[in-house]
């Protein structure tokens, strides 16, 4: 049952015109009114941020479409007062393109947001079969030079600390003396 006191507290028509118009970040002028500045900000803040990109990749590999991720990103920036809603419409295309290219390069399989029913079904089956994990667990193949370099670095790391001499590390007994 609805609380009758809430009904009485409902906003009266036109109340929105009487409240302070600068209560929220999106009520104030945006921080990045220029397209190029705003695009650079989105790239630096979100797409070049390893932590955020990792989170986005997790979302994509769990069936959230790239379009939904980019839409959420844009709405959050509008909500933070970084860009205006009109600017988000200008930015969403270039950001989507850059984002999907990055995901393609990373080998993440994702839904674009414009998928057909058949594509959705195929993706759902792939999620069920967990085939999408096979790609990410593939071992990285190193060249001979890289392997030799890795061995050299490992040997250096486990090499014993030189003892004795003027500059050598002190051994337990010497320290006691």
């Amino acid at each position, binding site marked *: 049952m609805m609380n009758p006191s809430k009904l009485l507290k409902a906003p009266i028509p036109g109340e929105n015109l009487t409240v302070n118009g600068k209560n929220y970040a999106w009520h104030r002028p945006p921080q990045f009114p220029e*397209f*190029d500045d705003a*695009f*650079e900000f989105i790239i630096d803040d979100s797409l070049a941020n390893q932590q955020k990109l990792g989170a986005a990749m997790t979302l994509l590999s769990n069936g959230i479409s790239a*379009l939904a991720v*980019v*839409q959420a990103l*844009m*709405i959050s920036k*509008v909500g933070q007062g970084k860009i205006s*809603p009109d600017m*988000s*419409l*200008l930015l*969403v*295309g*270039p950001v*989507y*393109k*850059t984002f999907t*290219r*990055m995901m*393609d*390069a990373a080998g993440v399989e994702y839904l674009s*947001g*414009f998928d057909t029913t058949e594509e959705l079904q195929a993706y759902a089956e792939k999620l069920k079969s967990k085939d999408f994990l096979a790609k990410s667990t593939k071992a990285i*193949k190193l*060249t001979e030079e890289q392997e030799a370099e890795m061995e050299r670095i490992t040997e250096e790391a486990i090499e014993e600390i030189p003892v004795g001499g003027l500059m050598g590390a002190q051994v337990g007994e010497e320290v006691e003396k």
Partner: protein
Amino acid sequence: MNDLYDAMRQAVSDYMNVDSLSPRSQARVKGIHSKFAYNYDTVDGLIKFEETLEDIEEELEGNDESE
């Protein structure tokens, strides 16, 4: 368009499939972004991964053989 989400969806669709639009719509989509430094072609060339890992491996193998 009902809300900002629909408008964004349409904007992405137009931007990504610009070649399939009518010439007038193409000019509109490309024309809007042509005023900025990050225009259509610049964004297109921002991330290019023409070389895949397989290509690089093939290249390395080719170098080893030539040596």
